[in-house]
């Protein structure tokens, strides 16, 4: 046991570098996912069949093929097919972003649809332009509804980052695996790794709770401070349905 922790301390620079890679993949991946969620989710509400069709196809494609396969496709298959090669971290960011963006699109679509019809009509009656309507009336209300689901998705994304280990990107799991192989203490190593991911997930949840409170405040809904420390709503992420 002590052997493990002394090795762990010796390897601390690598571990913190690995933690940094994991955080980078999480942040960049979720940014890409967020952008795609909004693009695809708003496209799904378009009046044009072609626009809706494109969004539907992309969403179903990236949800239907496994993230694992997508990641490896970008890493192994794409260089062979196109000659372009991405670094492992970039592969991870692209695959995570595309996959979770497809799931996020359903969240955006559902939340926009759940804004009461009367709000659209009122904005229309006030002669607001479509962009103005979306920005000032629909999205602020939809955003509050999206946050809990996005929190779930964000945690899922964080939980998918250890896949980078398989591409030998030097992420957190790679670093801890290395310590494990030096000491042979499997149980300690993996429990420690799980604990770190748990802390990261909880930190992200706190951040999202803060965001949710902020969004609610903008709508004039005030929430108590106790809500900030709750664990994420256990509402399951919709994988197949997504209709509300």
């Amino acid at each position: 046991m002590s052997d493990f922790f002394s090795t762990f301390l010796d390897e601390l620079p690598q571990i913190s570098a690995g933690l940094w890679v994991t955080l980078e993949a999480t942040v960049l991946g979720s940014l890409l996912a967020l952008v795609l969620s909004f693009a695809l989710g708003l496209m799904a509400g378009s009046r044009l069949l072609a626009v809706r069709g494109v969004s539907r196809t992309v969403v179903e494609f990236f949800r239907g093929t496994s993230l694992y396969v997508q990641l490896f496709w970008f890493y192994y298959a794409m260089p062979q097919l196109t000659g372009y090669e991405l670094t492992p971290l970039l592969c991870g960011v692209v695959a995570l972003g595309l996959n979770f963006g497809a799931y996020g699109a359903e969240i955006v679509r559902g939340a926009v649809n759940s804004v009461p019809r009367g709000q659209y009509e009122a904005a229309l009656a006030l002669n607001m332009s479509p962009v103005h309507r979306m920005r000032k009336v629909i999205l602020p209300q939809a955003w509050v509804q999206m946050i809990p689901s996005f929190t779930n998705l964000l945690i899922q994304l964080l939980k998918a980052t250890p896949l980078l280990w398989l591409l030998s990107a030097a992420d957190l799991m790679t670093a801890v695996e290395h310590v494990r192989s030096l000491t042979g203490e499997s149980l300690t190593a993996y429990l420690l790794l799980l604990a770190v991911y748990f802390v990261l997930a909880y930190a992200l949840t706190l951040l999202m709770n803060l965001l949710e409170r902020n969004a609610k405040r903008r709508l004039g809904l005030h929430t108590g401070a106790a809500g900030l420390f709750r664990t994420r709503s256990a509402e399951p992420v919709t994988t197949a349905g997504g209709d509300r």
Partner: protein
Amino acid sequence: MNPTFDWEAAREALPLLLEGFRVTLLATVLGTLVAAVLGLAIAVAGRAPSRLVTVPVKAVMEFVRSTPLLVQLVGAAAVFTSVEPLTVGIAVLGVHYAAYTSEVYRAGIDGVPQGQWEACRALSMSPRRTWQAVILPQAVRNVLPALGNYAVSMFKETPFLAVITVQEMVFEARKYGADHFAYTEAWTLAGLVFLVASYPTSLLMRKLEKRLGH
């Protein structure tokens, strides 16, 4: 380097992938079964009268839910070296997803009107009979579509099993790709098989959800 898609290699790889696909399906079905049964047990335990039961159960479930499946899988395989990898894989998938399905059951149980509990008490039914005859039949019906969705998402996570040397489809894809330097063909086919298998299931689940009035 072969910049184009080699159809010959694809035709050769497909039977191997489908062979591995049987293991993928087996793991999904058994894993779902474990998750469905264990999740129910956890949900019922979560309503136990004593906090000595409910608090630890909830804490463990929160931990399992918040930590990566891949780490759980690799860790379990490294600790239980004497157990067959497929068994470890099914157990870990089942426990991981049970943490989610237990929440689904919980919501389903909460959805049964309070009056039903009161009626059972008025009829002086035993707790066991209350669960069996009144609460669960109503709860489980509402929960089925969500369980189906988890089965689909578990199916898409079975490739993790390749890491602990279970010879499922992705394991075969990786092997074929490396042996014949045909990564494009192997990985593209693997993705397509997933798409072909999971999309109709998704549609089916959506229909089921609509029919049950969600």
